[in-house]
């Protein structure tokens, strides 16, 4: 049975989540640069408007038409490939198995 405290917890979670969601989208703007890090080290930094294919040890990152996406990955879950294209400031693609982060700034 739901009690008063439950509703307080639900509301707090919803409020926190939605507030942070607004914070995420507020001031969202098209990014300029792409930063690719692998195992904590920056391996590529370049403009989003320069078409380029960056090959890492396990992932292939493609930058074209102002978007960046991971074309292929050698891992099992393919989360990074399924993330799709990113182009807005602050958007990221993360590949946990290979510790690769693609970030638009």
């Amino acid at each position, binding site marked *: 049975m739901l009690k008063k405290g*439950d509703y307080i917890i639900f509301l707090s979670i919803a409020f926190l989540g939605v507030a942070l969601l607004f914070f995420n989208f507020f001031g969202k703007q098209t990014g300029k640069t792409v930063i690719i890090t692998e195992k904590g080290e920056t391996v590529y930094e370049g403009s989003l408007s320069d078409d380029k294919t960056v090959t890492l040890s396990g992932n292939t990152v493609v930058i074209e038409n102002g978007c960046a996406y991971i074309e292929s990955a050698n891992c099992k879950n393919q989360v990074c490939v399924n993330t799709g294209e990113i182009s807005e400031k602050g958007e990221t693609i993360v590949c946990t198995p290979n510790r690769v982060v693609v970030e638009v700034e």
Partner: protein
Amino acid sequence: MAKKISTYALLACVCLIFGYIESLVPLTAAIPGIKLGLSNSVALLLLTKRDIKGALAVNITRILLSALLFGSPFSLVFSLSGALGSMAAMLLFLKVKSVSVVGLSALGGTVHNIFQLLAAFFVLGSAVKYYLPFLILAGGISGALTGIISELILKKVKTNGKF
């Protein structure tokens, strides 16, 4: 003692099976780490029986085994951070009378995801912070669902207050 150990082992196995089934049914492709978290129902079961040591033992066993079987060293760090954070949060609210299992579970789910992201923050860098709102909301929803399931289990399973 022997009975207790075998019960914990059994419960850890149940957690592993839950985890395996969940890994077969990915809920979303876009945000990593979103799942129902059915294993938490076992922790909830033990916590509501005031068996805090047992809950901790089963949880840590489950995480170590699941990392060995299906995961990587990083998934171990993520799970451990998430599980310990959510256990601590649920322990804090365990004695609050106006919070039921469902609320407890929702809280646990959210805190689990926050701590998991915190671990990812250190391993992968600050970029992962944009997942935070999604993970908070997803943790709350999946936690509440797991809580409802746990409440049903608690009603059915008669343990006479001990295992």
